[in-house]
């Protein structure tokens, strides 16, 4: 409890010191004024006390002689009572008068008065006694002497009063001069202390509130979200310093948190951007890949040549040649399509038919082609040159070296949302290794018409339909010397606009 009360620190100490200063200043000023006023009063009192004392002394001496006279003439008991009253009073007064010689004239005179009083009382008493003893000659002489002495006393008191009056007036002049000086001094002191107090009040208030206001301004800025403020530099040794330090720390912490969050967001952004870029790159790559794959085939010249040859054959009347060459030309014309444009399944099937016609022509009865086409789904969209390479594969790998009759089945059917394109041959078949080699053969096929191997077909399908798993696109079943069955499974999409 007490510990808390007397622990002066920080703002509390400052305030206490300030109040103490103010109180002490004003207190001193008023004490000084009070003291001066009291001093003046007591000195004025000193002057008047002497007057009063001398005056009462004078009166009592007069009264004493009067009472003595009264008694002497009238023998009145009242007079004697009064006489004794004055007698004892004067005796008391006489006792109180110092009998020490002094360098001061008034003290000397008062001493004289003291001795004269003693003599007066003796004479008066003797007169009274003589009266009581009825010795008339004696009491008259004693009374005369007493009267003389009382005159002396009065004379002296008068002189004393004169002297005192003179001294008093001098002192009064000095005092009034002093009083005016002191009141002037008091006024100056009061004004001075007032000014000082006002100054101190302003000074202390500014000193105390300046850091708080600074702090408030900073807080306001921060509340508006402006964290770019300088750290407050306030060097006080009170709680405000603690506050400011805490505030600065807080600002720095908040700033660093915000910076952290911003950094993270940036990193995330950058990651996303990178991802986007990666994706774009990928798509570009895919695109490029597609284009490069497609551009391996450049059948323009061949097509034109074949077309010319077909017309030539027709002119020469060789219909079969003309048809054959026409088929070849069609095959190549198909390649001349815009390679990036997907085609319909119908076009694809037509293309396969063309190819098969060519093969039939080449190999006559050694090869047979069957197709089982679901006309309903022929409008589905697929990348071009997909089925032909598979059929070609079946011919090249399965049937070419076979002596007996080769058969190739093409089946296109819908099952659910998917389209199944099945190419079956009765060729020599493959082992598992060979199947994998076909699927994952990265070398482009050497002797393919289209220059596109199975691997390429798979890749393009995957990119086109955005399917990553090879197994979802293609399925190859094969048995040695019995044949191979290749099934393509693609989504049934119609009229989808691909953005590239």
């Amino acid at each position: 409890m007490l510990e808390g009360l007397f622990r002066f620190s920080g703002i509390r100490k400052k305030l206490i010191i300030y109040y103490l200063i103010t109180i002490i200043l004003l207190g001193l000023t008023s004490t000084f004024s009070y003291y001066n006023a009291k001093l003046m009063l007591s000195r004025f009192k000193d002057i008047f006390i002497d007057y009063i004392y001398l005056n009462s002394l004078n009166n009592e001496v007069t009264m004493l002689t009067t009472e003595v006279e009264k008694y002497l003439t009238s023998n009145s008991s009242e007079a004697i009572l009064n006489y004794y009253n004055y007698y004892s009073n004067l005796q008391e007064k006489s006792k109180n008068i110092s009998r020490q010689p002094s360098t001061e004239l008034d003290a000397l005179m008062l001493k004289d008065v003291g001795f004269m009083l003693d003599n007066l009382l003796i004479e008066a008493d003797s007169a009274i006694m003589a009266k009581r003893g009825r010795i008339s000659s004696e009491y008259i002489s004693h009374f005369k002497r007493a009267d003389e002495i009382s005159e002396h006393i009065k004379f002296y008191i008068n002189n004393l009063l004169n002297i005192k009056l003179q001294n008093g007036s001098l002192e009064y002049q000095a005092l009034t001069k002093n009083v005016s000086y002191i009141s002037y001094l008091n006024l100056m002191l009061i004004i001075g202390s007032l000014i000082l107090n006002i100054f101190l009040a302003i000074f202390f208030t500014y000193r105390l509130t300046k850091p708080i206001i600074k702090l408030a301004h900073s807080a306001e800025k921060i509340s508006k979200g402006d964290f770019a403020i300088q750290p407050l530099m306030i060097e006080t040794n009170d709680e405000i310093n603690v506050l400011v330090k805490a505030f600065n720390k807080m600002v720095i912490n908040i700033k660093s948190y915000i910076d952290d969050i911003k950094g993270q967001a940036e990193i995330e952004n950058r990651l996303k951007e990178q991802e986007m870029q990666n994706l774009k790159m990928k798509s570009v790559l895919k695109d490029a890949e597609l284009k490069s794959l497609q551009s391996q085939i450049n059948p323009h010249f061949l097509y034109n040549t074949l077309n010319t040859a077909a017309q030539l054959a027709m002119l020469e009347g060789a219909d079969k040649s003309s048809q054959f060459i026409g088929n070849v030309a069609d095959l190549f014309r198909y390649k001349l399509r815009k390679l990036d444009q997907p085609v319909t399944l119908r076009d694809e099937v037509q293309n396969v038919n063309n190819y098969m016609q060519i093969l039939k022509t080449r190999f006559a009865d050694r090869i047979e082609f069957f197709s089982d086409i679901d006309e309903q789904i022929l409008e589905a969209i697929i990348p071009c040159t997909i089925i032909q390479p598979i059929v070609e594969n079946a011919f090249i790998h399965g049937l070419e070296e076979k002596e007996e009759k080769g058969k190739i089945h093409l089946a296109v059917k819908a099952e659910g949302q998917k389209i199944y394109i099945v190419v079956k041959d009765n060729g020599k078949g493959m082992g598992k290794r060979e199947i994998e080699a076909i699927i994952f053969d990265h070398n482009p096929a050497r002797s393919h018409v289209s220059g596109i191997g199975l691997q390429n077909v798979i890749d393009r399908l995957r990119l086109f339909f955005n399917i990553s798993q090879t197994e979802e696109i293609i399925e190859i079943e094969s048995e040695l010397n019995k044949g191979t069955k290749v099934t393509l499974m693609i989504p049934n999409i119609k009229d989808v606009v691909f953005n590239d």
Partner: protein
Amino acid sequence: MEKLSGLIYRVRNPIIVILLILIAILSFIFYKSQTFEQIESSIVPKYHFYIISQNSVDPFWLEIKRGIEKAAKQFNVAVEFNAPRFNNPDEELKYLDIALTSKVDGIITHVSDEASFTEAINQAYEQNIPVVTIENDAKSSNRSAFVGTNSFLLGKEAGELMVDATKGKAKIGIIISNDYALDAASQNLKINGFLSSVNSFPEMEVVRIESSKMGILSAEEIMQAILKEDPDIDAIYTTNSVDTLGSTQVIIDSNRVGEITLVGYGDTEDILRYIRKGVIYGTVMSDPYKMGLESVKALLDIKELDNTSTFIDTGVKAITMQNLQEYENNRANRAE
């Protein structure tokens, strides 16, 4: 303790320093305002002496007062002066009575009227209060001592001055101060002294003796009468300073400076100035300062040694133009 040292450290704060200075100044003013009334006499005087002089205006008596004050200070004695404003033997007697009733330790008094003063002085003697008479004596009383100048010597000195001034050939008028005709004896002594000096010169003749009564105006009146009625008087002797000044004034007014030789009495500023100018040939002077001094010493001797000589002569001095400077210097030195 830590708090305390912290507080002391805090004192470096400029405001606290200012405050401390302010408090110091205020307390200093307090202290000063309190001390100026604490001047008090610390020494208690040994005795209380009562002085009664002939009057309170005569430079002669003022000079005596100075001597007494000097001695009082020197011997640590309290002195109380009382005097009628102008010569008034009754008042002097009243003061003497007051002194007696007041049981003072000693009285120094001028004697105006030997008969009435003797009674009072004897009363004092009975009450064991020593009395020293000054300037004028009451020979038949029980006074303890007389301090003053021998009047005969004063007159004789004046006569010698007159002889010097007139080279032994003069018709002389004398103005004596004769208030109340009290100290006739003393005045007679002066005249006798004067005559004793003059008589040996046959060509010197005292033609007229007048007595002044009422101070300076009276002297002027007499002087005018003398000049008018006795035009052949060419030398005047006056026996007090007031008469001297009055006569001088008349001589100047009637344009007879240089024709009339004036030998006077006193050493007031005016008289000294006239001596310097040559209007007054010279004055004789008892030494009032020394009188004052010696009277206090005499009383002290009586109080402490119970013994002193009954007549203390303070000497006679003649002041002329020749020794004027020396005299003034001495006086100036004494004043300090």
